Every structure is written in structure tokens, then in C-alpha cells.
């Protein structure tokens, strides 16, 4: 593999590159170009070492963008890593560890990164100001569908989704601990050590591969080790904090095994030691590749021996950034000048820089970056004399450079603190928000708490660790311990600057970026104020400032500063926008964990499932069940199979696997009374040995379930529910028993899985049962005289222990035979064998539905939608007029449920008998060529009926029952009109003679 030399990698002699192993070179590609790096590099450091400054294009204007940060704060350098199905988009290059053969690509550019058509947006940017989406894509209406939506969809997002199914494994694990410390810098480690030493079970999560945070870039440079007795997770990012100290941590795993692991942690105490994030300053073209944070520039130099450039400018309002200039000077990594807005910088670091001979331009501001024509490389900055409060510059001078290291101060990383309602207060000493109160047992320490001095941070962290441990272990808190006092800092004070004054019209090709990731500029925020978005949350939504994965990490306080200057209100009065989880983007695989494919949802199968599969059934989901839909055979299509199955039931006999039907045993002294209150009709009067169809309402008076209930004994009923409703109804019964009628002595037992149940339906059904009876021990008399319709019998049939219910959902003579589930498959096969000479045919759920529709029977969920009363579907006769109370009774009396104009269930016959209306088609009062048409109802079920050799449909139509014979018009997609006549919903055998033989 040929490798390009890495021109910005400094030689070993400089003593830099703490994290890289120069003995282990690695090859990788970026946009197809072969490059090299070292073990220990991040993708970002390796790209910079190779002189690759341009790594992406911005979201809206497609401006060239480079690497700005060092870790989780990176908002520009989002890349895609991996090929094909393993591709992962939108990764921060600063957090991608380099490995041999890594394939990375830039995003949001076409046709190539250096020449991108979309950058024309930058030229036309005056036409796409803040709130552009809300202002532009409004009219004409027809443009929305064909132009705006496709355009927005293509422009949306940055990376591309992987091309196939992710083959990686993901894992989730649930743990509890006493103290969870987030952040493995000096503060986090001190807190964890103190908590563990106090006897608490402590976990610590660190985003980076190694511990120590950014201590090496500030005062301390010691090696950091995991404290004893602390469970330390590196490469693990705390994504979110939820109620009662429930946190999600995402671990990036190495080697074999899962790709990522999601830790779901419940901690008694949480210590947030997430450090602080350096913030940018808004000056013209502050987004050019080569403008980076001062800490990041220092980090690439110290950790990876990568020079940020040859001639640098450090632009700052505080002392810390001087460290970058000092490191550059000390290591001979080119020339450097400090531009400091403060008139009289005077801290210890400033003095050190002066002694080192670093040029310092005090009271000066960087107003603008000059770059090459394509904007991809910096040539100089414009600088000018600065005093606080000035708004326009008159005289600028030019300072040649090829990179700018910026520091506008530090924002404590309060995201985790705020996810679940932690309060903040604005601190004028650090010009940033810091943690205030939290309702959960949560502590913030170190830089995350705005405590930037190392000694003070360590003291406060140890204190928090001990106190958190004491509270977690329910010991009394050490009352003699007091929170440590802050030592006076040896540093000069920070002076706030948000927006460097400009000499030119500042949104005309000279943008001052606040939120790099969402391309939000100072001008956008100011425009939002002029347009009246005075609430900070409204400004955020209008401009998209602080949205997406950045979540205000770099842009939040900077934007608040700009709003403050634009409105003249102090920052604390403006308020702060909400920080939302996740802290960093996470891949969907981590969210799903192992719950994908067959583990996504537990699929329920009946005891006969394998027979259905072996006999060519197609399946449909019903609740969590898979039910046989139809059984195509001999090359027939589904429609042919369904028609064949239906005609077999009507002419001979069919066999249906009804095992999924919900079955609930209701037992106890008051079982009858209880059912009287649950159903609209009466069950206490039902005789033992008999069955009754019941209708169940909710308290609003609307139908929620139906089914046949059999009385097994005086104190014992077996309720059948819909297949999808079994669990819901069992919970419903329990709720009423426990909460409203605890005086009733009733026990509820769901027994759906205990029984296999089959419907033998058709004119020859009884003959099948008699044939089976002849094959073995039988004591059930199935003759019409001794086994009437709507009764049940128990006993033996062909040697099987059975309960037989003479009930019918097809309108034919029908027996539903239940047997213990373990015997289900044998009974099914015995029925098929016994019925073979009679032409018995297995039928599926679609045939079942057509058969019941021919009879006008409702299906809860088809004919009902949660707003339908018994009267609406013509079942008012099932509503008791004598019972004093049942669920929903009082609501049914409400005037609007009895008023004229409600939709009523009717049958429909289309003019053309071959025309099958689509489910959900609406009938309209009047057909109009344009504009909305008033609907008077809709189709609830619609089928081709092989029995009637024509289409049939059921519909809910306004005053339907009083419109018999009326012809309605259904406009369909594409402008086609279908006419249908209202008829009774009972299409077949209206007298019900066939089931009663």
C-alpha cells in the first residue's frame, strides 16, 4: 500500500504524541484517498497529520468545513465509516479511533468534497435566511407534493443510511450501583475514589479510550489510573439521564463480540464530572477549515504530534488559550501570535508567554478570516483595535496565518445535568451557565460545575464522592465536612466577547457562525429578534440554533450572548434552551440491542402451526399471533384459495384453527353478577350447558369486545374474547374486580394457551363429528335433538377429551371443538382424516371474514373503531333494558349517543357486481370536481363473495338504516366514482336457518 507522507506530523524528537505509537503505522482511506496514521490516532488527528483540512460540507450552505474540536464537541467533522451494510453515518471524526484498513467518507457533498454543487446555496444565502423553511414552502399547494417535499427530503440529513441489514451484534445490560460517576478526568476520578473508599459500589463512565480527561492540556500531566474498587468503563458515553437516576450509557466495544453495548444504569447517586466545552467566537468566516478551538489545537499537538499549521493565530478572551501558544513555541511547531481582546491581559500564563517572546496583540480582535477563493484554506486574518461595546470597525490590518486557534471561554458540560430538569444559574465570573439545583440525587463537580481550578476541583470532587457514598449507603452525612472554599485564581479574568465587530455588511458572504452544524449565523439570530421571536425557545425553533446532535455544546451560550447584545437584555433574563438527550448521536442498533429479527417480538403460534406451514398456509398477524390466512394449493392464487375454502364451508364442511380465540375462565360465587356488569346483556340468567353472545362496552358506551360465553357450572363461566383482545380484556376484568367491585367473589384466569380449538363448519359438520366419534371412545351425543344451537357439551369424542360448543360465526351448522393444547395437533389431524371422504377443507382467516360478512356479523375493530355503540351496529337488542348497571350503561343514555344522524351499520351492493370497494372508502353527500367533499360514512368491510357471486360490503353511514335502497357515491383515488346501493347487512340466509339444523 503506497502511503502519502503525513506532512503535519512532527518528528519524534519534539517529545510530542503521547497517545500515538509510531511503531504501529496504520493505513486508511478518506474519500478513496489512501492515507496513513498511527495506532492511537483518531480519524481527525490522522486527517490533520496528512494535511486534510477539508473534511465535510455544512448542512444548509454546503460551506467547506474542517475539524474544530477534539472530542464530543465536534460539530463539523461528521463522516461516514465502513462499507455497505456496515456503513455508519454521522460519526464525529474526533471520536473515531483509527484502525488499519478503515474506510471513511465525507458527507453532504456532490459530486466531490472539493467541488460541491450545493455550495451555490452559499452564494444565494441572502435568499435563505433564518426561518426560510417557514417562509418559503407555503404555496402554491401543488408545488408541495412534486417540488418542495422531494427537494427537502433530498437535502435533509447529512450521511447516508447503510445499504443493507447491519450484521453487527448489539447488547444491552441492566445494572444498579450506589454511585455513578460520569467523566474520567481528574475530578471524576477523585470523586470515584472517594466514594469507593467510603464503601460504595461505584461505576465510572469515560467517553475516551483513556482516563484523565483533558488534564494533560492544562495544569496536570500525571498518568491517570482507575481507582481501586471502581468499575471503570472507557469508550462509554453517558447519553441520557432520566427520572430517579436512570441513565443510558453507550459503550463502543473493541474486538470480537458486540459492536456496542447499552448500559441501563440505576444509580442511587450520580456525580457529573463531564468537564467543560470551549466555545467559539463569532467573527466573519469563523467556519473556515483551519479555524479550530484552542484546546483542540493544543490537543492535536501534544497527543498526536500533529501541528495545526505553520503560522498560527491564537484568538482569545481568557488566559487558558495562552497554553496553546506556549506549547507551539516550546515545541518549535511554527510561528504563533496571540490576539487578545483584553486591553491588559495579566495572568501567570500571559507573563510566561511574554517571557517566551510570543507576540501578544492586546485589545485586539480578529474580525475576519481571509481564505483562498474556494474557502478551503486560510491565508490571513483581519485584525483591529477593540474595546467592549463597539459595533463597527473602521480600520483593519492583515495578519498572515494558516490556522486560528480560538477560545471564547468555557461552558460547563451541563447537558446531563439538564436532561431531567436540573436548574442552571449564570455565573458572571466565568460567563457561562453552571449547575444550580437538581431534584434527583445528583452532584456536579470540577469543570462541569464551573470549577476550573484543579486544586479546587479535586477538593470539591472528593467531598461529593464521600457525601454521595454516605447518602447512598444511608449513613448520616459527615456533618463536620464542609464544601471546600475556592482558592483565588492566579489567572486574569475572562472578558466576554460573543460577536467580533465587522467592517462590512455581515451576512453578505461574510457569515459569523454561531451554530456551525445547523449553519446558524449571528444575522439569523438577530433577524429572529426583529421578527418578534423574543422567547429563546422560539428563536431556537425558528433558526434551528442549538438543534440536532450539537445540542448547544458549542453554540448555546455564544448564541445567548448574541441575543443579549441584540435585545439589550442581560443573559440570565433571556433564559436557556433545553438540552435534550442523547448527548452524542447513537446508532439505532444500540437502541434495538438484541431485540431484532425473531427476537423483536415474541410470535405466538397455535398447536397446529406446523401443520399450517406444511400445508402451504400463508399467515397474517393477529395481535402477536400468526394465523393461517389461506391455504393455496395446486398453483392457485390466494383469491382462488379463499373462494374454494368459502364454498367448501357453504357446500360441504370446513375446518378452522380458532385456537387464538381469547379464553378466560371466570369463577366464583358472584361470577354471574360480575358478568352482568361487564356485558350489556344478561349472563346470570344463562343456564348451565348453554352459551350466549355478549357485547362489552367501555364506560363511554362504545363497543370494545364481543364473544360467546358458556356457563360451565353455577359459579363457573368460560368467556371467549377476540383473538387480539384476550390480554386486554383479562386486564380489564381484573381492574374492575380489584378497584370497583372488590366485594364480588370472582377469580379471573386467562386460559387461551391451554386449549386448542377448531371450528367444524358446514352442512356436513355433524357427519364429520359422527365419523370421528366412530374411531374411538365417545360419549357426546351430537344429534340436533340433544345438542341444540347455542349450547355446549363436554366428554370424549374419538378418544379425545373435548368441550364442544355449538356456535357459529359462519352461519352454517358449526361445532367448535376444544381440547387440551397438547392434543391439538392430533385432534386436528383426526378431524381432517374423518372428514376427508366428505371433502373437509381447512380454511383460514380470510375465508372466516368473508363468511361472517355474508352473514352481517361485526368484527370488533372493523365495524367498530372505539366510537361505535351497540345501536350504531344494530345490536341494540343485546342491551339490557332491565339491568340497573353495567359498564357503559349510563353513557348510552347521553343525548348525543341517541341522537339522529349517527352512522349506522348497513350493507352495500355495488352497481357493478365485480367492483370491490376499498376498505375505508368514503361515501359523499355531493360529488365535486374540486375541493373537499362532505363525507356521510365509510366502508368498514368489503369482499368478493363467492357464495353470492358478487361483491359485498358493510359500511357505517349517517342514518343508514333509514336510507335502505338509496344509492351512494364513493369517489376513489384518481377521480373514479363507484356507486353502491344500501341494503341490509345480512346478505345470506337472513332467517338463520342454515346454522339451526
Amino acid at each position: 500500500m503506497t502511503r502519502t507522507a503525513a506532512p503535519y506530523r512532527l518528528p519524534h524528537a519534539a517529545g510530542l504524541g503521547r497517545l500515538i505509537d509510531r511503531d504501529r503505522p496504520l493505513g486508511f482511506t478518506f474519500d478513496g484517498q489512501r492515507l496513513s496514521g498511527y495506532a492511537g490516532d483518531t480519524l481527525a488527528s490522522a486527517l490533520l497529520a496528512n494535511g486534510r483540512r477539508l473534511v465535510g460540507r455544512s448542512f444548509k450552505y454546503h460551506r467547506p468545513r474542517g475539524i474544530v474540536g477534539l472530542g464530543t464537541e465536534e460539530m463539523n467533522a461528521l463522516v461516514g465509516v465502513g462499507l455497505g451494510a456496515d456503513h455508519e453515518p454521522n460519526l464525529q471524526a474526533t471520536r473515531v479511533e483509527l484502525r488499519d484498513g478503515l474506510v471513511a467518507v465525507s458527507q453532504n457533498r456532490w459530486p466531490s468534497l472539493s467541488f460541491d454543487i450545493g455550495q451555490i446555496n452559499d452564494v444565494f444565502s441572502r435568499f435563505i435566511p433564518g426561518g426560510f423553511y417557514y417562509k418559503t414552502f407555503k404555496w402554491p399547494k401543488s408545488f408541495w407534493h412534486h417540488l418542495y417535499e422531494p427537494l427537502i427530503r433530498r437535502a435533509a440529513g447529512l450521511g447516508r443510511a447503510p445499504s443493507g441489514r447491519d450484521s453487527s451484534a448489539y447488547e444491552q445490560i441492566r445494572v444498579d450501583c450506589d454511585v455513578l460517576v460520569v467523566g474520567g478526568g481528574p475530578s471524576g476520578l477523585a470523586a470515584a475514589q472517594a466514594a469507593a473508599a467510603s464503601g460504595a459500589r461505584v461505576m465510572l463512565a469515560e467517553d475516551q479510550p483513556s482516563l484523565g480527561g483533558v488534564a494533560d492540556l492544562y495544569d496536570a500531566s500525571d498518568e491517570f489510573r482507575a481507582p481501586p474498587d471502581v468499575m471503570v468503563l472507557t469508550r462509554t458515553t453517558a447519553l441520557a439521564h432520566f427520572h430517579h437516576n436512570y441513565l443510558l450509557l453507550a459503550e463502543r466495544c473493541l474486538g470480537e463480540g458486540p459492536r456496542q453495548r447499552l448500559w441501563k444504569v440505576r444509580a442511587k447517586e450520580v456525580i457529573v464530572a463531564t468537564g467543560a466545552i470551549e466555545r467559539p467566537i463569532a467573527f466573519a468566516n469563523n467556519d473556515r477549515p483551519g479555524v479550530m478551538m484552542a484546546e483542540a489545537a493544543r490537543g492535536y499537538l501534544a497527543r498526536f504530534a500533529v501541528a495545526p499549521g505553520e503560522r498560527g493565530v491564537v484568538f482569545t478572551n481568557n488566559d487558558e488559550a495562552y497554553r496553546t501558544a506556549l506549547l507551539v513555541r516550546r515545541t518549535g511547531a511554527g510561528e504563533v501570535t496571540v490576539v487578545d481582546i483584553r486591553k491588559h491581559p495579566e495572568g501567570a500564563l500571559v507573563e510566561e508567554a511574554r517571557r517566551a517572546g510570543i507576540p501578544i496583540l492586546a485589545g485586539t480582535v480578529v474580525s475576519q478570516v481571509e481564505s483562498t477563493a474556494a474557502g478551503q484554506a486560510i491565508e490571513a486574518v483581519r485584525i483591529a483595535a477593540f474595546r467592549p461595546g463597539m459595533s463597527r470597525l473602521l480600520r483593519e490590518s492583515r495578519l498572515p496565518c494558516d490556522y486560528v486557534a480560538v477560545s471564547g471561554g468555557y461552558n460547563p458540560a451541563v447537558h446531563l445535568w439538564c436532561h431531567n430538569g436540573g436548574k442552571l444559574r449564570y455565573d458572571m465570573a466565568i460567563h457561562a451557565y453552571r449547575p444550580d439545583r437538581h431534584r434527583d440525587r445528583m452532584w456536579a463537580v470540577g469543570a462541569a460545575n464551573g470549577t476550573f481550578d484543579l486544586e479546587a476541583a479535586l477538593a470539591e470532587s472528593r467531598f461529593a464522592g464521600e457525601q454521595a457514598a454516605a447518602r447512598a449507603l444511608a449513613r448520616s452525612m459527615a456533618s463536620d465536612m464542609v464544601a471546600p472554599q475556592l482558592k483565588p485564581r492566579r489567572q486574569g479574568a475572562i472578558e466576554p466577547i460573543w460577536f467580533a465587530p465587522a467592517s462590512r455588511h455581515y451576512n453578505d458572504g461574510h457569515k459569523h457562525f454561531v451554530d456551525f452544524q445547523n449553519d446558524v449565523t449571528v444575522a439569523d439570530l438577530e433577524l429572529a429578534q426583529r421578527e418578534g421571536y423574543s422567547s429563546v425557545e422560539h428563536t431556537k425553533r425558528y433558526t434551528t440554533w442549538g438543534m440536532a446532535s450539537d445540542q448547544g455544546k458549542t453554540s448555546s451560550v455564544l448564541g445567548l450572548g448574541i441575543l443579549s447584545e441584540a435585545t439589550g437584555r442581560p443573559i440570565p433574563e433571556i433564559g436557556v434552551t433545553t438540552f435534550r438527550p442523547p448527548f452524542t448521536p447513537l446508532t439505532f442498533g444500540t437502541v434495538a440491542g438484541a431485540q431484532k429479527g425473531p427476537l423483536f417480538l415474541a410470535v405466538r403460534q397455535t398447536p397446529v402451526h406446523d401443520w399450517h406451514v406444511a400445508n402451504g398456509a400463508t399467515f397474517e398477524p393477529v395481535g402477536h399471533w400468526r394465523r393461517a390466512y389461506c391455504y393455496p394449493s395446486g398453483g392457485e392464487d390466494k383469491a382462488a384459495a379463499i373462494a374454494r375454502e368459502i364454498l367448501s364451508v357453504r357446500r360441504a364442511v370446513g375446518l378452522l384453527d380458532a385456537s387464538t380465540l381469547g379464553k378466560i375462565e371466570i369463577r366464583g360465587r358472584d361470577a354471574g353478577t360480575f358478568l352482568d356488569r361487564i356485558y350489556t346483556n344478561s349472563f346470570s340468567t344463562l343456564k348451565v350447558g348453554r352459551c350466549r353472545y355478549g357485547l362489552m362496552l367501555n364506560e363511554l358506551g362504545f363497543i370494545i369486545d364481543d364473544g360467546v360465553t358458556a356457563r360451565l357450572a353455577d359459579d363457573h363461566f368460560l368467556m371467549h374474547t377476540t383473538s387480539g383482545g384476550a390480554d386486554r380484556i383479562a386486564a380489564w376484568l381484573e381492574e374492575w374486580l380489584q378497584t370497583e367491585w372488590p366485594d364480588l367473589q370472582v377469580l379471573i384466569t386467562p386460559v387461551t394457551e391451554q386449549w386448542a380449538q377448531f371450528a367444524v363448519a358446514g352442512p356436513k359438520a355433524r357427519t364429520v363429528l359422527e365419523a370421528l366419534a366412530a374411531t374411538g371412545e365417545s360419549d357426546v351425543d351430537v344429534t340436533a335433538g340433544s345438542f341444540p344451537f347455542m349450547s355446549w357439551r363436554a366428554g370424549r369424542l374419538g378418544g379425545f377429551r373435548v368441550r364442544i360448543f355449538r356456535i357459529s360465526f359462519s352461519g352454517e351448522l358449526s361445532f367448535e371443538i376444544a381440547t387440551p393444547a397438547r392434543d391439538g395437533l392430533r385432534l386436528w389431524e383426526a378431524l381432517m382424516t374423518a372428514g376427508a371422504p366428505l371433502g373437509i377443507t381447512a380454511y383460514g382467516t380470510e375465508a372466516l371474514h368473508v363468511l361472517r360478512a355474508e352473514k352481517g356479523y361485526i368484527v370488533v375493530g372493523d365495524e367498530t373503531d372505539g366510537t361505535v355503540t351497540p345501536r350504531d351496529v344494530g345490536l341494540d337488542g343485546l342491551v339490557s333494558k332491565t339491568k340497573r348497571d353495567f359498564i357503559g350503561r349510563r353513557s348510552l343514555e347521553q343525548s348525543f349517543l341517541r341522537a339522529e344522524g349517527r352512522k349506522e351499520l348497513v350493507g352495500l351492493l355495488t352497481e357493478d357486481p365485480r367492483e370491490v370497494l376499498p376498505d375505508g372508502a368514503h361515501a359523499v353527500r355531493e360529488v365535486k370536481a374540486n375541493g373537499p367533499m362532505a363525507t356521510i360514512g365509510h366502508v368498514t368491510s368489503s369482499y368478493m363473495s363467492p357464495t353470492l357471486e358478487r361483491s359485498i360490503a358493510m359500511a357505517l353511514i349517517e342514518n343508514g338504516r333509514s336510507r335502505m335502497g338509496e344509492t351512494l357515491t364513493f369517489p376513489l383515488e384518481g377521480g373514479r366514482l363507484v356507486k353502491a346501493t344500501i341494503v341490509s347487512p345480512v346478505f345470506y340466509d337472513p332467517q338463520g336457518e342454515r346454522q339451526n339444523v
Partner: protein
Amino acid sequence: MLLIKCPVCGVEGDETDFHYGGEAHVKRPATDRPDRVSDGEQRDYLFMRKNPRGLHFERWRCDRGCGKWFNAARDTVTMEFRATYGIREEPPAT
């Protein structure tokens, strides 16, 4: 993700192991006097619910434990469960 302890069986678990059942102590007028429930009473029973900032009495079911319903007094601001108690019991003095 609330942490909840069932007062009936004593098991402690995440809120996803429980089922929220809305405001507690809502009286169903029809249970006592089904023939004399005014439209207004029925409306209040069906739809009118408290939405306090602070202490809220509410129903929960121990879904993956004992299956029993119970009442809880929870602070809607701090999310603290001040008390849990039997489904038919009156709220404790607070």
C-alpha cells in the same frame, strides 16, 4: 424512568414493569345509585381529571409482579413517591 415499589408484593422495579392508571379516588357514581346519575356527574366522572403541579394521587398496577392495583401519592414536580397504599384505602395524611 421512575423507580416504583409495589406496596402489595414489595417488589421494586422500573415504571415499565408497572402500568399507570390515571387519577386515583375518582368515584363512579353509577356503582352506588345507577338510576340517579346526572349528565354533569357522569361527565365529571368520565373526563374531569386533576392535573396538579405537585402532589398527585394516582393508580398503578404491578404489571409484572403480583398484578394488583394500588394507589400512590406522587409529586409531579420532583417525581418523588411520597406514599403508596392499597387501592381501596383513603390517601394518607400528608
